């Protein structure tokens, strides 16, 4: 009931709001204990021996699949047991709609466990969320069978909760079993029987399935079923009868496998395909019936979690997969590099990986080093059981996935050690725990996490400080399974990313209400740009979507050379404007009614927003008193805290904080004398005051002239706000910027928000935090003060090794973000990551994560250019490449070969650094205006790694010849997957059309001789000449080409929370230069081409 209307696609709200906390649910059943002993999941490696069976090749038949799946699952099985039991007690006819079932299936377990309250409508699930095939038939069968009345409720729960909830690994599995049961036992057979069948005797099961599975499915091919579903079922099979142990199940499978017609090798392949399929683009062949498709697509999201974990086992990229599954929105997962074919054992997988990673690459010879698909984060070389619990690399990433043991070793490697975080990312599944005590280490205050070790039932050892702690009494009871005495199976210990509902000890004042204050520049200049119309309209449209509750407050201030307040007192027929002209000593004209409750005064607010754009059209006031307006806003907000959104269109000219123009256009060329540092500390001090009062300031700068973003930006930087910059915004002359503002503002207004937040990052003793990067105020060596936190903000942390990490096999990092949600709940989101420690240089190189390194270096370079000069920063970037490659050459390579050798893991390093050098933030030359440069620097500091990488090194696709080959199928849509091309003009051909995806913008470049069919069938115009100059939309035509192109572009867009604008450019477009500027492998007037850059590096390295 909770969230019937939730849109399937939206990322935003899901995490926090809708979820059901894990609470001790009423529903549990006794079967739970049946779980096998395996469960002990203390993170210690090596403990899990049972996992191995997982490798067994899956069978192709659907029934068989289930089995295969089960193999992987180890601990999960236990849980399933309960789920099944619930279902069994069948009494009442099954009411659940098929959809629900399918959707929930994966999740079912948890939700069911939880509380009945959770029940929600099926709608909440994205369509097809779950394991497809199975569910289908279940349903069909179900009517016959007799799931209990209780069942229905469970299902419902599941669906409801499921959407929000993270299927902890535990929960996920249950449904599938349920499915089997139904199918198998039309007559209401005893549970065990049903289970047994699936497990032991596949054939019977399969039969029912087969009908549903249409012939369409290609034999080996990516089974329509999709990896995830299969897997789960497997667990289920094991689970149901408690009696069955994993081993048994494994044995069964083996038997099955042998019996199965397919030979081992075949099976394996299919397995790969399956897993990969889920993850990657996979390729579900289109033939499958619609239902199937539906299921699959969704399947990722929900079902995935549990399977995700399980999946990890495959050698190739276990971690990745898991992560991918978990977080459906990440774009990356889809493209997975082909996994190694052999599924021997995990360790083997690890080995092969290593060898690949160690292979030196001669960069001068191998020109085609750019992978065809998006690069994935490397997987730490951990025991698979640990790895599968590890944090998703999109949330938490380390530059070196093998941590060097000593600082000396780190220095030798010449690579930066650091973390890149995206802590508040929108997640589709997040376990939420409500409990009276949050278990933490008594000495270092670390939250309990999957990587602690349990010494026995009552004691656990902290993985950060190694203190032995007691397990509190409450923690002995597992609310998910309702079993006592299994602390190691609590969700806290099963999920690296988890959210706690914080009790009152975590607040020093009652959680604040969401408070939003909008501050508009209404000087003549601002009115000229016409932004007020757009902003007010967007605000009007999204007023109901602002995150908040009944306590939400909102207020408005406008300013030119005076400050205008708006009283929205109840009972007024229209808003009352109060003007304060004393800008030297700002005061608040009336104590209340300037910030009013949004819901109670909605009409007045809407009224104000409608009239605001017209109120100042005659204004001739050109001065801008931004400083005093900000002071006023701060005074207004300081009692509560909240968010101030400032719209500014020019250089502030009067009052405190007035600035002078410092940009001298003709000096842009000289890299040395540009003003990257603030000219006054007014904004910084004000930001610190804001930070102290839990107020964040977000700055929207819409300016044609220089506005000294370097100084203004401080207001956002230190108050944890964000900066948006729209160069030369004008409502008529620059329609593209208008659309961009609309889209970004919409996202800005509706995205999740956390108030009065702090984030603490802890790491294992011996490591220490060196520097933080991002927008915040550092309050203590490991504590960031974030008055607001938003899901689009990323952070970076430089680390150093203070004491050598001898005797440690792994180290852990934990970030804990304490915030107040827009619903007024205090929550703590905890991410924990575990990485191995290594002692040799070659292993350090092996684990290098080139994207993370590039991201961290970019952050460091921004600092360097501010504290020293831009050219220093550029040199430092180049030196980073030279130093690391020469260290590799001299210390790791035994044979000195000619050429420029780089470890495989760093093969893209020079390319990325070159891309950074050519980026607006660091480029030389007169191209970049100062504000633009500084804005790019802000973005480098504040964007999550994924988007930073796209911005730095965009992906280029050829789109005029898209085919369905290798396409991805989601929700009935076929999404072509063209390969990524190198960013070089030589890859462009005049008779093609190319799409460049640069994160926040996309360019579609149409070659002069582009095929007529593409122009007419995709662009909808008769010929090249008639393509309009400022085209930003593709018409939706009924042609296959158009549908493919649009499907691909919208698929790219869906993977990010903001809306990238598509520019369609021709040879003579003014935007062509920005397109060509991204061709970073080519030579430009002031920068080297990629090959020249390599030669330069080689020269330095070989010196």
């Amino acid at each position, binding site marked *: 009931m909770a969230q019937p209307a939730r849109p399937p696609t939206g990322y935003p709200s899901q995490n926090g709001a809708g979820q059901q906390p894990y609470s001790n649910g009423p529903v549990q059943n006794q079967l739970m204990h049946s779980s096998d002993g395996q469960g002990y999941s203390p993170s210690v490696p090596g403990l899990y021996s049972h996992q191995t069976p997982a490798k067994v090749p899956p069978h192709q038949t659907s029934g068989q699949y289930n089995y295969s799946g089960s193999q992987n699952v180890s601990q999960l099985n236990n849980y399933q047991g309960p789920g099944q039991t619930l279902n069994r007690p069948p009494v009442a006819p099954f009411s659940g709609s098929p959809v629900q079932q399918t959707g929930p299936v994966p999740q079912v377990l948890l939700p069911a466990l939880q509380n009945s309250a959770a029940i929600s409508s099926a709608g909440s699930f994205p369509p097809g969320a779950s394991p497809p095939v199975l569910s289908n038939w279940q349903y069909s069968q179900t009517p016959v069978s007799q799931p209990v009345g209780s069942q229905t409720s469970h299902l419902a729960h599941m669906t409801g909760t499921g959407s929000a909830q993270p299927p902890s690994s535990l929960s996920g599995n249950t449904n599938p079993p349920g499915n089997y049961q139904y199918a198998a036992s039309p007559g209401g057979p005893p549970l065990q029987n049903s289970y047994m069948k699936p497990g032991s005797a596949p054939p019977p099961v399969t039969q029912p399935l087969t009908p549903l599975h249409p012939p369409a499915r290609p034999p080996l091919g990516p089974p329509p079923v999709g990896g995830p579903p299969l897997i789960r079922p497997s667990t289920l099979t094991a689970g149901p009868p408690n009696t069955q142990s994993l081993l048994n199940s494994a044995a069964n499978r083996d038997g099955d496998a042998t019996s199965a017609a397919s030979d081992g090798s075949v099976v394996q392949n299919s397995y790969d395909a399956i897993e990969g399929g889920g993850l990657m683009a996979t390729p579900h062949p289109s033939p499958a019936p619609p239902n199937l498709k539906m299921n699959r697509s969704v399947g990722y999201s929900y079902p995935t979690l549990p399977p995700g974990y399980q999946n990890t086992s495959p050698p190739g990229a276990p971690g990745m997969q898991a992560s991918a599954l978990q977080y459906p929105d990440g774009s990356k997962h889809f493209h997975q590099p082909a996994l190694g074919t052999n599924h021997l054992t995990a360790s083997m997988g690890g080995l092969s990986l290593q060898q690949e990673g160690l292979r030196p690459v001669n960069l001068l010879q191998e020109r085609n080093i750019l992978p065809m698909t998006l690069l994935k984060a490397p997987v730490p070389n951990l025991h698979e059981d640990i790895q599968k619990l590890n944090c998703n690399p999109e949330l938490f990433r380390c530059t070196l996935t093998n941590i060097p043991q000593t600082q000396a070793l780190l220095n030798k490697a010449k690579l930066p050690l650091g973390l890149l975080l995206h802590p508040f990312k929108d997640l589709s599944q997040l376990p939420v725990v409500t409990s009276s005590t949050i278990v933490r280490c008594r*000495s270092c*205050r670390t939250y309990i996490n999957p990587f602690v070790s349990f010494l026995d039932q009552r004691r656990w050892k902290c993985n950060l400080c190694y203190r032995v702690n007691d397990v509190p009494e409450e923690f002995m009871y597992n609310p998910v399974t309702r079993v006592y005495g299994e602390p190691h199976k609590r969700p806290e210990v099963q999920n690296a990313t988890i959210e706690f509902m914080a009790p009152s*000890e*975590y*607040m*020093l*004042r009652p959680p604040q209400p969401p408070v939003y204050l909008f501050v508009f520049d209404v000087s003549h200049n601002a009115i000229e740009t016409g932004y007020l119309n757009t902003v007010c309209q967007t605000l009007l449209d999204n007023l109901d979507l602002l995150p908040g509750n009944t306590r939400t407050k909102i207020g408005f201030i406008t300013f030119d050379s005076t400050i205008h307040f708006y009283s929205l007192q109840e009972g007024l027929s229209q808003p009352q404007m109060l003007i304060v002209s004393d800008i030297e000593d700002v005061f608040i004209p009336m104590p209340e009614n300037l910030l009013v409750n949004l819901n109670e005064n909605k009409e007045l607010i809407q009224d104000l927003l409608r009239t605001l754009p017209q109120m100042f059209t005659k204004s001739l006031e050109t001065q801008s008193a931004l400083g005093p307006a900000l002071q006023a806003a701060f005074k207004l907000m300081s009692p509560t805290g909240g968010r101030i959104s400032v719209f500014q269109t020019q250089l502030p000219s009067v009052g405190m904080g007035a600035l002078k123009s410092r940009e001298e256009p003709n000096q842009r060329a000289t890299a040395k004398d540009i003003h990257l*540092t*603030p*000219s*006054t*500390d*007014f904004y*910084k*001090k004000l930001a*610190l005051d804001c930070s102290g009062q*839990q107020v964040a300031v977000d700055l929207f700068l819409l300016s044609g002239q220089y506005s000294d973003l370097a100084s203004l930006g401080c207001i956002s930087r*230190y108050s944890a706000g964000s900066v948006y910059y729209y160069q030369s915004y004008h409502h008529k002359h620059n329609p593209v910027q208008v659309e961009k503002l609309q889209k970004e503002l919409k996202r800005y207004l509706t995205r999740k928000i956390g108030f*009065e937040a*702090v984030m*603490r990052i802890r790491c294992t003793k011996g490591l*220490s*935090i*060196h*520097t*933080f990067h991002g927008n915040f*105020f*550092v*309050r*203590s*060596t*490991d*504590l960031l003060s974030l008055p607001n936190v938003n899901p689009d903000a990323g952070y970076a942390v*430089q680390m*150093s090794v203070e004491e050598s990490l001898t005797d440690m096999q792994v180290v852990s990092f934990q970030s*804990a973000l*304490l915030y107040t949600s827009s619903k007024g709940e205090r929550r*703590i989101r905890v991410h924990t990551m575990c990485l191995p420690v290594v002692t040799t240089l070659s292993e350090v190189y092996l684990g290098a994560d080139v994207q993370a390194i590039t991201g961290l270096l970019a952050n460091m370079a921004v600092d360097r250019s501010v504290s020293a000069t831009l050219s220093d920063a550029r040199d430092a970037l180049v030196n980073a490449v030279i130093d690391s490659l020469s260290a590799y050459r001299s210390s790791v390579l035994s044979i000195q070969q000619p050429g420029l050798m780089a470890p495989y893991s760093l093969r893209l390093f020079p390319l990325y650094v070159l891309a950074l050098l050519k980026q607006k933030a660091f480029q030389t030359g007169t191209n970049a205006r100062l504000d633009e440069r500084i804005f790019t620097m802000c973005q480098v500091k504040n964007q999550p790694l994924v988007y930073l990488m796209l911005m730095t090194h965009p992906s280029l696709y050829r789109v005029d010849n898209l085919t369905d080959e290798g396409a991805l199928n989601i929700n009935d849509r076929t999404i072509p997957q063209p390969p990524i091309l190198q960013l070089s003009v030589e890859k462009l051909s005049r008779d093609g059309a190319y799409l460049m995806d640069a994160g926040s913008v996309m360019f579609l470049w149409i070659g002069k001789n582009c095929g007529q069919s593409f122009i007419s069938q995709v662009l909808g115009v008769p010929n090249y000449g008639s393509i309009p100059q400022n085209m930003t939309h593709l018409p939706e035509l009924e042609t296959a080409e158009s549908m493919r192109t649009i499907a691909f572009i919208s698929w790219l867009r869906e993977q990010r929370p903001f809306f990238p604008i598509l520019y369609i450019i021709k040879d003579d477009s003014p935007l062509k230069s920005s397109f060509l500027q991204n061709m970073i492998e080519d030579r430009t007037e002031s920068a080297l081409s990629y090959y020249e850059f390599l030669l330069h590096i080689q020269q330095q390295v070989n010196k």
Partner: protein
Amino acid sequence: MIAPGIPRAAPGPPGPAAMAFTFAAFCYMLALLLTAALIFFAIWHIIAFDELKTDYKNPIDQCNTLNPTVEKVKKIKRVKIALKLVLPEYLIHAFFCVMFLCAAEWLTLGLNMPLLAYHIWRYMSRPVMSGPGLYDPTTIMNADILAYCQKEGWCKLAFYLLSFFYYLYG
């Protein structure tokens, strides 16, 4: 400077040794006292930075509470005072450098010149700030800066101690 210095010289030194009393001797005595004060400042400085650095290891700070606890407020105040002492320190040091200049104690002055120059440089290169002060709260937590400041504190302490004994016996 000299003008106020001389008249105070007479009442300052009590006792019979006043015979050999010169302006230079007075300078040394004053410098001795002031150096003692500077040593005190330096120690405070070191403690302040150490507190900043080790803050997180403090088990009392158990949870991520938003607002500082009472003890924390006290500590922050102490740290702030310590950081504010920087300017008086520079002024005091500059003051007795001038005294030595007037007393024509070239050797002593020469010994103090590097520190004086350092102080001037340090103050010139401080971050952009409207008020007086040397430390920017937004960058002070950077590990490099923190380490640098700590090292600076120790070096100064050593320097002041040495000069203390130098003045004592000089």
